């Protein structure tokens, strides 16, 4: 009896000490563990499953936004209101397998991302873009800048440089962006569905806030545009600023976004071609599909490179007045008001009541967006006058805000419009007559107070 009692403490001493030591060991191991947050090598880029939204977009639009988490359901219902969709589910298993193989060869996988233009392209129309690919890579900072042009191994060295940049960018993307933008950059990451507006889907190669030459046939962002979005975030949306990352890290991220976008656009284009009823059932098979992927990769690279190397939407003329204290400012604002409300520019037809009564409209991704309420003073693409200049001259692709052409509206008119837009949220800076037309009162203090800047509308 006594012996048994004496044994009692020992019976649980050992397990307790063991478990304590195990916990301690596990904790220490956890602390010293690898912080490598890259992708598993087994992870692949899945082939697109959600429908492609085709033009023309439905003209009829609901009065309310898409409820949170229901984006894909609402896109699938677009045909009910005369929207056009292409469903990748209609691809045959063989087509899907071929497409996946071709895309994987050209773009790798999340842990080993790459961009390769593979194989010869017989199609005359696209052969040049493929030949141009090395130059495109160089223009897009996806080629090793230290390698001399006459280096015999230049192609291999450039490829190695590109793969390394993209691998680093992919790792950063996983840590900072994937949660909203998704592994393939489809804007359907775990939290993406719950955000309004929805995170950008890169897979159509369309970006809203760009500053390239507006005369280009296909408007693509320049690296600086993507970097600006990373630096400043997109005010009024869930996209925060990533200015705390180093400049190098942001550069890698830009490269990776470019990779995802080109991969997505090639996939988009190929699915569209595969499902095109006019092409006949065996239009793109085996080798042809590979060539299609190569030619489109070359084409989209060239388009990006065009935007990067062309001069950009540079103002030809400086504004006459930029400060409300300038004597010419009121006249400029008045002119801006005329342009905004006039028939030719047509701003007011979408930004109804200066955006206060704007209606939801479909964008190229099949999501509902609202033209900005310009009395709020929140500018997604940036609040610098030059940012506004870019928005007006390049338009907002995807959201279908048209560009203002320089023939009908010289820079002076655009600067006037910008001055009007800058003054619009601040009634005290509007001339009396304009204030009365916009806010219905002459006294700036009588304008009803609104939500103080920085928020959503």
């Amino acid at each position, binding site marked *: 009896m*006594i012996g048994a*009692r*004496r044994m009692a*403490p*020992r019976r649980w*001493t050992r397990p307790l000490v063991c478990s304590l030591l195990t916990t301690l060991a596990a904790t220490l191991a956890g602390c010293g563990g690898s912080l490598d947050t890259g992708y598993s090598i087994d992870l692949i880029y899945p082939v697109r499953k959600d429908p492609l939204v085709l033009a023309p977009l439905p003209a009829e639009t609901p009065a309310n936004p898409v409820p949170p988490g229901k984006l894909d359901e609402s896109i699938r219902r677009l045909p009910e209101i005369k929207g056009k969709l292409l469903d990748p589910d209609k691809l045959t298993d063989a087509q899907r397998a071929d497409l996946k193989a071709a895309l994987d060869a050209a773009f790798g996988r999340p842990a080993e991302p790459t961009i390769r233009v593979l194989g010869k392209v017989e199609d005359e129309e696209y052969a040049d873009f493929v030949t141009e690919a090395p130059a495109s890579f160089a223009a897009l900072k996806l080629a090793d800048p230290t390698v001399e042009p006459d280096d015999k191994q230049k192609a291999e060295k450039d490829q190695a440089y590109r793969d390394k940049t993209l691998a680093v960018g992919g790792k950063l993307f996983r840590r*900072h962006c994937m*949660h909203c933008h998704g592994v393939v950059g489809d804007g359907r990451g775990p*939290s993406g569905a719950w955000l309004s507006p929805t995170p950008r889907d890169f897979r159509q190669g369309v970006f809203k806030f760009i*500053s390239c030459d507006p005369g280009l046939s296909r408007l693509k962002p320049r690296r*600086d545009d993507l*970097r*600006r979005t990373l630096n*400043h*975030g997109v*005010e009024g949306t*869930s996209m*925060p*600023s990533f*200015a*705390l990352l180093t400049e190098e890290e942001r550069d890698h991220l830009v490269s990776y976004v470019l990779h995802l976008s080109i991969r997505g656009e090639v996939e988009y284009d190929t699915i569209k071609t595969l499902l095109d009823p006019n092409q006949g059932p065996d239009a793109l098979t085996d080798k042809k599909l590979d060539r299609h992927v190569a030619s489109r990769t070359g084409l989209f690279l060239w388009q990006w490179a065009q935007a990067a190397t062309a001069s*950009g*939407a*540079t*103002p030809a003329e*400086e*504004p006459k007045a*930029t*400060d*409300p204290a300038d004597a010419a400012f009121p006249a400029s604002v008045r002119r801006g008001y005329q342009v905004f409300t006039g028939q030719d520019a047509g701003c007011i037809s979408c930004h109804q009541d200066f955006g206060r009564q704007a209606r939801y409209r479909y964008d190229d991704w099949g999501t509902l967006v609202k033209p900005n309420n310009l009395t709020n*003073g929140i500018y997604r693409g940036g*609040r*610098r*006058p*030059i940012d506004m*200049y870019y928005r007006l001259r390049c338009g907002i692709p995807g959201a279908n805000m048209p560009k203002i052409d320089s023939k009908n509206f010289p820079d002076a008119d655009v*600067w006037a419009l*910008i001055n009007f837009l*800058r*003054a619009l*949220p*601040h009634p*005290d*800076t509007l001339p009396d007559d304009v204030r009365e037309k916009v806010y219905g009162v002459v006294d700036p203090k009588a304008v009803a*107070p*609104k939500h*103080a*800047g*920085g*928020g*959503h509308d």
Partner: protein
Amino acid sequence: MTNRFWAVLFGGVLLACFLMVALAPVFGYWLPRNVCVYGDDIDHLFYVILWATGFFFVLTSVLQVIAIWRWGDYDPAKRAQYSHGHLGLELLWTIAPGVILLYLTFAQIPAWSKVTYPSERPTPDQVVTVVGRQWEWRLRYPAAGVPERVRTWADGGLIDDVYVVNELHTWKGANCTLLLKTDDVLHSFYLPNFRRKQDLLPGKTVTIWVQATEANTKHDAATDTWSLDPAVGPAWEIACAELCGGRHYAMRGVVFVHPTKDDYDRWLKHTATRQRSYKPEQ
């Protein structure tokens, strides 16, 4: 003999804790550098509470270790003794904590009123609106310190206001008043170096103030840029101290304290000019 094990274990853990706390400052793990006028008041209260709780923690732990050492190896044949309590002891350990708590109640009043009472708030030299959102701090500065502007600008902003993300700029000695708002969920605006932490409440504007006693920013005339002075040590951080979502950890910013108002004004003008830029440059 076996039961001495527990006395040694408890004693060892106690000693290890004590050494860790005592040695932490040597390795730089202690309160971050205090750079706010009322930081000392907050730190003083922190130390009072630390000493009071530390003293009693050590006292009770040492008594426990002594008890385990002395009486742990009990004789099972001996009957336990039941105590009905000791009035003197009960009085002692009721009154002593009561006195300490009363002391803390009154001792914190001056600091609390100085830091939080609107009536005690100094006349602002600078008013900055801070909007927290998932997951960044958006700050808005009035372009110039016109007194009237300080009054009116909080509700709508003015055309020449300066917008900056994740950077709080002030200058040494400025009464910096911060209007805290949130766009989405609860956040908490935390300035560890200024000993100030305040929740942001949706739909409400909360006003706080800080005043820096030191500067940490220098101007590089060659590039016309401002950067943190490495000689001052690590950056003074803005942190979110309220779990606010997936990237709560990334909701950080930096405080730049300019040496003089002139330097701050120059920075503000520089930033305002960039924001008004109509030339294509990053």
